[in-house]
């Protein structure tokens, strides 16, 4: 089984982000960038499938400027065999990303595409499903367990009310949720060693025409200053006054 793992460069998911004063975007000035954590889980799962003998080759792919090489090198350090950087400084929304990845998938013919359920910057949760639709492949989103069974995949996925297991014929698309695995820690020497793995830079196969654009970003409305109560009696009195108990 050959696996393609799309990864996205996102602003440090653990940093506190703020809108720029003019609302034109997020202030990323002093912040680090990382692999989208859900994509990191996807890379880890691909590497585990190879360690189990179920996968033969793992290709990581990303779309963006030369800076994205940093995240692809991380994927290589985790165990991906090679990487593709689709070089572009254009704005890519989910439909455009899905279109580009579909073109690459038609060329590389992977058996499995595994990627994050969403990116922690845009929180869209769209690209995997759109890609699956364009390729007409079955999908399992929000995966918490992936098991190869007789040439198919059994994917346990989280649902609104619990979980379910789907059997997917290959090729298929899986998007990862948090509980699928805990990605391995990669020390700096590992990242340096990954510098010798092949990373192909190529232009985009199409020029994206976004269907959406962000007009402005702003902080969420505040709920107002919190109020403290001294004890449980005051709390009960307050709740009665507000009519919620």
């Amino acid at each position, binding site marked *: 089984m050959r696996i393609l793992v799309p990864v996205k460069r996102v602003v440090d998911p653990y940093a506190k982000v703020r809108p720029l004063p003019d609302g034109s975007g997020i202030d990323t000035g002093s912040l680090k960038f990382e692999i989208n954590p859900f994509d990191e889980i996807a890379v880890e799962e691909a590497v585990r499938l190879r360690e189990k003998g179920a996968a033969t080759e793992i290709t990581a792919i990303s779309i963006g400027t030369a800076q994205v090489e940093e995240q692809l090198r991380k994927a290589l350090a985790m165990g991906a065999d090679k990487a593709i950087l689709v070089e572009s400084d254009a704005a890519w929304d989910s*439909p455009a990303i899905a279109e580009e990845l579909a073109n690459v998938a038609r060329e590389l013919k992977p058996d499995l595409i595994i990627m994050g359920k969403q990116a922690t910057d845009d*929180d869209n949760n769209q690209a995997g499903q759109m890609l699956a639709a364009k390729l007409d492949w079955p999908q399992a989103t929000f995966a918490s367990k992936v098991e190869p069974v007789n040439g198919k995949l059994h994917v346990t996925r989280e*649902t609104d009310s*619990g979980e379910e297991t789907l059997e997917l014929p290959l090729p298929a698309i899986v998007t990862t949720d948090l509980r699928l695995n805990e990605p391995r820690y990669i020390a700096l020497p590992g990242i340096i060693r990954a510098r010798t793995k092949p990373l192909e830079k190529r232009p985009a196969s199409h020029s994206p025409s976004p269907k*959406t654009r962000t007009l402005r970003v702003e*902080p969420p409305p505040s709920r107002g200053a919190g109020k403290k109560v001294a004890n449980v009696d005051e709390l009960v009195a307050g709740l009665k006054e507000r009519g919620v108990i």
Partner: protein
Amino acid sequence: MARLLLIAFQPHEGLQGAGFAQSFGMPFDVLNLTGEAPNDAGAERVLSANLAELPPADGLAKGLLAFAGGYSHVAAISSMLSKDVMARLAGLMDAAMVTDVIEADSPTVFKRPIVAGTVIATVEVLAEPVLLTVRPSGFAKPKVGGSSIVESVLIETASMAKRVSVVARAGTRPDLTRARVVVSGGRPLKDAETFESVIGGLADQLGGAVGATRAAVDNGIVPNELQVGQTGKIVAPDLYIAAGISGSTQHMAGIKDSKVIVAINKDPDAPIFEGADFGLVADLFDAIPELRAKLGTGE
């Protein structure tokens, strides 16, 4: 043409979504996939598919495609289920999609939370049709009256993916996203048994649902479907009680539309207190039993 199709994946979403659809000010139809949808919530037509079980996303999206033509907007209530299917449908339609809409400024301009709810983005859609998933708490309840034309429809459900097994959450508590009262706990609850007796006990006394933080889920104290926050369930109850929860941004993003938020935490500097209507600095293991005793008497 300017016309909205509301897809109700679950029966109650017909009414939830009608609030959004009415505020949107466009004629709308409802495609109700399971059970009965209300026929007095302002829809011109209610199409009832009466599916016994929803097929996996690839089959369902293909089935829905036959109904989505002729609409400028196709919307559903935000859930894991609707995100799974609607984004695939958007891919089939080559359509724009806006996830987790909390406000509609116009038929093409929407507000939605991004970066775990720390930022609100205003997004413009540049092409029709557009698919939306909507968080209903930001929209008024629908006006009821009149009656829709009700039709039965047949949806194709053949899927490449096959459902092998389903594990549903057991229990009799109300649905987290629709409960009037939600009691949530964090990592200090230690284990499943403690969580159930302390948080579950208070929730049952109030007739409410139980929720949890991502930390509690990650520590295996509660199952994933109880997670409240930007990456879990979005809740908007009349009363939200957060016990032993520090108040991460992503958790706050999931509860901010609650009418009254109560925070019980030992740490007086926990960020949860900034967003709470009533903050009690106390050990939850003392405060909750006391609260339960005082709620139980004196009525």
